Structures are given as C-alpha cells and as structure tokens.
C-alpha cells in the first residue's frame, strides 16, 4: 500500500488502474474531464467492496458472530484510516456520512441548535449549494443572520479582505469552500482560521473539491469542521465524512436519531453512544465506508503533493491551449499556480450545453451548467459555463482532445 507511483510520470499507467477508462465512446477513447462532479474508481476500490460483500459482509457493532466482528473491525479501521489521512487525532473525530451535502445538513443542524436569534453565519458568494442552502434555510427558520464574502472580479477569487470587516462578536461560524468548484481558487485557510478563531467563531470547510487534489491536515490548517464526499476522491457514492474537533463533537447534540447512536432508550428519553457513533444513526454505509478506506489507500500510494503538481501542469496546458483559440473566457484566477484542478470557461457564440454535446460526440466528457453555484453564476453574470476538471489519470492528450473539440465547435457555430 505504501508503493509510491508518481502521478505525473506515470499518467498512462494510472489510467490502466481505472477499468472504465478503457471504454470506447463511438470509437474514441473516453476523455473523462468531469472529475469535479465525480471521479472514476480504481480497481482496488471496486474489488475492496466486492470482495468484502463476498467474504465478510454483515451488519456492524452489535453482532457477536465472526462476520459481524470482521465487518466491525473493517468499518472502524476505515475511520482510523481517514483520520490519519486528514491529520485528525483519532476516529472519534471522524463521522461517516453519505456525502458532503449530508455532512453540511448534519453540521448546520447541530450547530444552529446552539445559536440564538441574531447570531451570524458567514459563507461566500461562491459556495456550492450544498454549503449554502442548509445554512440559508436554517437561518430563516431560526432568525439567524447569513452574510456573504463577495466574489472579486479582479482576482477571480473572493474578497478575502472583506471578511476582516464583516466578522464580529455575533459571528458563530464561517463556512467556506477550500477549492471552488467553479473558479478553482484555493482558499487561504490558515489566515482565515486565525481571524475566525480570534473572534471566537468556528471554521467549517468544504473540502469536496480539495481532498483528492492537495494535502490536507486539519490540525495544521486550524479547521474545526471539514466535509467531503467519497465519490469525488476515487471512492464510492453514498460515502462521505464530517470531521469535527473532538471537544466540539463531544459537546454537540446529534441532529439525526435512531439505532446504534444511542446508549439507552426508554419510551420518553434517550442517551447517546460514544463518539463518533453518536452521529451515525442506523445501519451505516458499511461497504461504502470500506470503499472509502480503500480510496484513501489509493491516494496515499501517490502522494497528494504529486497529484497537486500533476494537476497544475495539466491546468497550465489546458489554459494555454484554450486561450490560444481566442474568443474564450476563463473564470477564476489567471495563473494556473493558484488553481486546483477545476477550469470553468465559455466559448463566444457557443452555448455551454452545445459545446458539451459536441465534445461528447468525440468522447470528451465535460460538465455544462451552473455547477450548483447559481449565486456565483449571477455574480459572473452568465447563465451557465463549460467546466473541465482533472484527476490523477488526466493526461496532456486528454487536454489536446478537449482543445481540438472546442476548436471544432467554434467552426461549426461561427
């Protein structure tokens, strides 16, 4: 598991680890550039799940028989694996959820239970709906104030300086994306963390786009809560993580209830299980958790430093290639150095949907639309954009296919 394979030098060997990438799309090789939506899965992750179902499957935590003991050990080990991967202290800080959205729904409910009317939540104008709508709805229901760090059209990032003026004694939590799923910028979390903690607020981070792109250490970055999805880090759907600092998790009341998260239940009263189980009601995503653990092993075999620099090279190649065509607008920071794996753009006279359909005819899969970030689209004053997003298996030739496809579209629509 500790074998290191350099992502950049072994592009095509990496590709071979992903069964779906050998699929032909109408005769063309599959060029999958929709990794921001979800990544493909390596054989190691698929076989970890499949063989678990075939050899050790059972429900966890309460069974005494061998299968249940094995399942429990494997499931708990996956928590430890994730804890280690993001620099958490122990599995007590790792709650397995069903994805980033689930993490934010859970976290926002647990936190706002402790807030009072007039307390403030700060998010940004560039958040994915997943880190916006839960706070927005709960703020409305509970009379909380929701404020937004605005988009900065000069830098293609957020107006970071404004946070300093916005934050106050009323601010209870600041919840921000680590890497924007549209603009691709990387938030300066260390600085933000200091500012947030100086004001006795909490910092929650959306790592959906960053966890498989750059190294994360929650303690070094000073993050109090971290949310991410398994399916965007080479793991299965229906898996995800909510990390929380142990002292915070200990004092928070759960927001979801059911079996396994309880210690004692009477008809009218319940007490809660130990961490992290008090936040995992019902039969958990057992096999998905095991798949997530295998995805962590996969990511560890590169290291993330290499993936980060690999994707930066791909980014530079893509930004160059597209710009050279002319009539292309690229959103986000202009330097590839300040971006992580996500490239949104528009082609003059070609609607993003049409571009995506045309690219698809040549086997190139990109995303087109609002990327679940409608308020950002409003700020950018566009209804939709195209988005290419990269992964460990993305090669320069994939980018060449993209650029060639865009060129063709320009000809067709000129």
């Amino acid at each position, binding site marked *: 598991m500790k074998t290191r394979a350099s992502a950049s030098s072994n592009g095509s060997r990496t590709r071979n680890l992903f069964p779906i990438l050998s699929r032909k799309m*109408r005769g063309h090789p599959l060029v999958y550039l929709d990794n921001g939506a979800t990544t493909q899965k390596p054989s190691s992750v698929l076989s970890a799940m499949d063989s678990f179902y075939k050899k050790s499957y059972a429900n966890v935590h309460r069974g005494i028989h061998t299968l249940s003991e094995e399942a429990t050990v494997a499931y708990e080990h996956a928590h430890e694996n994730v804890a280690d991967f993001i620099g958490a202290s122990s599995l007590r800080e790792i709650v397995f959820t069903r994805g980033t959205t689930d993490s934010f729904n859970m976290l926002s409910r647990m936190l706002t239970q402790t807030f009072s009317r007039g307390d403030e939540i700060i998010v940004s104008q560039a958040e994915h709906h997943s880190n916006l709508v839960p706070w927005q709805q709960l703020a409305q229901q509970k009379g909380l104030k929701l404020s937004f760090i605005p988009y900065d059209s000069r830098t293609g990032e957020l107006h970071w300086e404004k946070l300093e003026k916005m934050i106050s004694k009323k601010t209870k939590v600041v919840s921000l994306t680590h890497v924007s799923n549209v603009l691709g910028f990387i938030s300066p979390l260390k600085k933000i963390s200091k500012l947030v903690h100086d004001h006795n607020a909490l910092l929650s981070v959306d790592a959906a786009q960053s966890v498989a792109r750059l190294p994360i250490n929650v303690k070094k970055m000073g993050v109090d809560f971290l949310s991410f999805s398994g399916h965007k880090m080479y793991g299965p759907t229906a898996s995800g993580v909510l990390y929380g600092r142990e002292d915070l998790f200990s004092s928070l009341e759960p927001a979801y209830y059911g079996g396994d998260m309880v210690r004692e239940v009477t008809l009218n009263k319940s007490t809660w299980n130990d961490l992290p189980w008090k936040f995992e009601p019902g039969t958990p995503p057992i096999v998905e958790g095991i798949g997530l653990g295998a995805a962590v092993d996969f990511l560890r075999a590169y290291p993330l430093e290499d993936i980060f620099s690999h994707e930066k090279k791909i980014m530079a190649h893509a930004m160059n290639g597209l710009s050279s065509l002319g009539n292309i607008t690229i959103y986000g920071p202009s330097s590839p150095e300040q971006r992580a794996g996500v490239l949104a753009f528009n082609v003059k006279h070609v*609607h*993003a*949907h*049409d571009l995506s*359909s*045309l690219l*698809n*005819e040549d086997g190139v899969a990109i995303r*087109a*639309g*609002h990327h679940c970030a*409608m308020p950002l*689209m409003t700020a950018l004053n*566009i*209804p*939709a954009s195209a988005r290419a997003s990269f992964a460990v298996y993305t090669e320069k030739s994939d980018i060449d296919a993209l650029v060639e496809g865009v060129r063709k579209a320009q000809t*067709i*629509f000129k």
Partner: protein
Amino acid sequence: MNAVTDQRDFAGEGMYREHILDHYKHPRNFGEWKTCSVSHKELNPVCGDQLSFQLNMDEKGVVKDVRFSGQGCAISIASASLLSDEIKGKTIDQINALSRDTVQELLGVTLGPSRLKCAMLSLDTVKNACQIYQKYHAGGKKHGGH
C-alpha cells in the same frame, strides 16, 4: 425521421446536423408582436434558457400565426423554431397532443434526458400559452372530454 431506437445511444452523430444549425442561426417566426391573442414566457433555471411565445388564434381556436423570442442553446432555439412552423393551422387539442417524440422527430435526433429538457422548453411554453388562452376564452369551444 429517426425513430427512437436504442435508448442507450443518445444524440448520435450529427446531432448538430445542418438542419438544426440552420434553425438555430436563422430561427423562423422569430420576433415580437405588439399585440396578440396570448403570450407566455418560460424559463429553465438549470441552464438559463428562456423562451417567449406569442400566438394569434382565429375564432375556432386555430393558431393562425406565431412569434417567438428568447435565448438558449442550439437545441432549444432550433426546437422553438421548428415547433413554431409545426403549430401553425393546428387547434389547441392538436397542440396538446404533441409529445416529446414530436419534438425529437422535428429535430431529427434522439436526445438524452438532459438535452431533452432543452428541447421541451418550447413545447411546454406553447402548451401553457394555449392553456392560458383557453382559461380566458372559456366562452368559446370548450376543452373537449377526450
């Protein structure tokens, strides 16, 4: 016209055949009247497409003429253009009988679920325009019990 054949082969080659591009670049019945029997606008927030249809009806509830305007992708504009020709001379009942298959046949391609939404915006707009017209002209021919 292409029949809907293999479910799995959405939007085969030639989705952007001359036909569609022609209607996109030169939409028929494009423009806006000052007055008309009924006008209606719809929006697809998912992709930002918006279409507005104006219909002129005769006393028997038949579409005499039509104008549309709006913005969107090639599929949605071409569908609107093709549909605007198609509904001329049709009764409201006949328009209500038009289906997603009609639109795909007009376009000459089979669309996958997401592009189908682009294509259906025009039909939805036209049908809703007819409904509004009927509501305000209930004195005329009643919506039959078919």
